[in-house]
């Protein structure tokens, strides 16, 4: 492992009680690469993302990011290293405005102290000014054409997804974990997200996408990892996937197992 911002999982295993959710899964993602993870419901995709972002600890195996072993780090520490996650059920702060959400995402831990609040308000003001500037850039980047001061709860579903994406981008996240980024979106919004993912990849991000919409994921990904029953059953270039594997059979096999 000596590539910058590269990410790898080594023999990750996780079970809940007697149920094995992920079994001995390994793969790597490089800078400027999109890896799509597919598989039927219950195949371990979201569990895997939870392990990558730190909400679940693997029973065995190790996780590397940017040349460091991050297996033991807490979620906020991983976020601090530049791992950004987009949730399947969007998690923006509804009671806050678009701008407040964006500022919250960009704040460093030192800005959020009590003593800082009392004694260093000029410094906070300056940092906030920079963050406001940065916010406009990223809202523009994702094409979120709404007022900064509207409450997040008034956004449409698609706009909330764009806001959530802008939030992790404004944090300067390098590894993006996108959990079903186009689920529930219309065709136009799907195209938009697809365009953004490609643009982000070309700008140097390392990206992992989970998605059930197979046409979307084959368009978006460079490489595909197929999970089934918690195991990796296939890994290869997205362009070769159809010639090498029959997806219907793969999905059908998993239902047969249940």
């Amino acid at each position: 492992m000596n590539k910058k911002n590269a990410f790898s999982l080594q023999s990750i295993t996780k079970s809940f009680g007697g149920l094995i959710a992920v079994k001995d899964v390994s793969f790597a993602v490089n800078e400027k690469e999109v890896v799509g993870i597919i598989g039927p419901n219950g195949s371990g995709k979201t569990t895997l993302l939870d392990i990558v972002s730190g909400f679940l600890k693997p029973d065995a195996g190790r996780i590397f990011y940017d040349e460091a072993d991050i297996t033991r780090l807490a979620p906020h520490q991983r976020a601090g290293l530049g791992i950004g996650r987009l949730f399947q059920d969007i998690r923006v702060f509804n009671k806050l405005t678009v701008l407040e959400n964006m500022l919250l995402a960009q704040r460093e831990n030192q800005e959020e102290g009590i003593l800082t609040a009392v004694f260093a308000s000029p410094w906070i003001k300056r940092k906030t000014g920079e963050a406001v500037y940065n916010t406009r850039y990223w809202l523009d980047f994702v094409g979120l054409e709404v007022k900064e001061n509207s409450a997040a709860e008034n956004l449409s579903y698609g706009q909330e997804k764009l806001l959530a994406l802008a939030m992790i981008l404004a944090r300067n996240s390098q590894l993006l974990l996108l959990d079903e980024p186009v689920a529930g979106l219309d065709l136009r919004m799907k195209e938009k997200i697809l365009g953004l993912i490609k643009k982000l990849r070309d700008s140097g991000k390392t990206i992992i996408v989970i998605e059930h919409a197979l046409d979307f994921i084959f368009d978006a990904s460079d490489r595909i990892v197929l999970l089934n029953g918690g195991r990796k059953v296939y890994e290869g270039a997205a362009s070769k996937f159809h010639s090498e594997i029959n997806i219907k059979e793969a999905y059908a096999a998993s239902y047969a197992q249940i």
Partner: protein
Amino acid sequence: MNYLLNILTIIAIYLILSQSLNILVGYTGLLSMSQAAFYGIGAYVSAILMTVAGVPFFVALPAAIITAMVLSLLVSVPSLRLKGDYFILTTFAFQLIVFEILYNWRSLTGGPDGIKRIPSPAVFGFVIDAPIEYFFFCLIATGLCFLFIRIILTSPFGQALKAIREDEIAAQTLGKNVAKIKIKAFAAASGLAAVAGVLFAHYVTYIDPTSFTLPESIFLLSIVLIGGAGNILGPIVGTVVLLLMPEILRFVGLPETAAPNIRQMIYGALLVLFMYFRPQGIAGEYKFR
């Protein structure tokens, strides 16, 4: 006149208490059952330091604040790293333990007899002992506490608290150290409760453990939940309403012996009714439910 001043002084002290608890309940989403314990810690530390060690008031005050903040770590560090309701249970236990210590450590706290003849505070040699003087002294202290609370709650720290209250998972993925921020909030709330305790001890000049019991903690929670949590106004309304209620009931002419019990029943009934019909309280923003 002194009757009125007494009520106003007590209201000023309780405004600090309710506002400090609001930081936890309304802004962080933490239900704490130990606010009266930190109130008591503040009162006792200051009272003991001034009566036994003879230190000046402006040494006793920060000592009380720091003691409460340090002791708050005993609750927050272990419990806030865990998930779910452990925090409530830990504060509950802490409240009971503090009361037992105040009640039984006779050599230090005087046990059930409490501490008597607590001196009045002196500012540059001017002793504040007349009721009107003490009222204004409390008013200034309460004002300063409010200013401090306003500054921290409108700062990035306050916004991080609100974010944690809404969604801890999302806050973590944005790099927030949720446990650490909660520990800080709990320490701040405890320090402020200690300020109220200090003001109380030097006002009444005699304290005993019965002022700092679990029912007192529940009473403080009632103030915040009935008045409303999550903004500055709610706890102010709650404090005024719940502190004036016994005075009003007094004029209704309840029998002397039954009055305290009837009051408790009214608080309990109010709390249930509010939780059911108006969870944001009279003037609050946040529904704690």
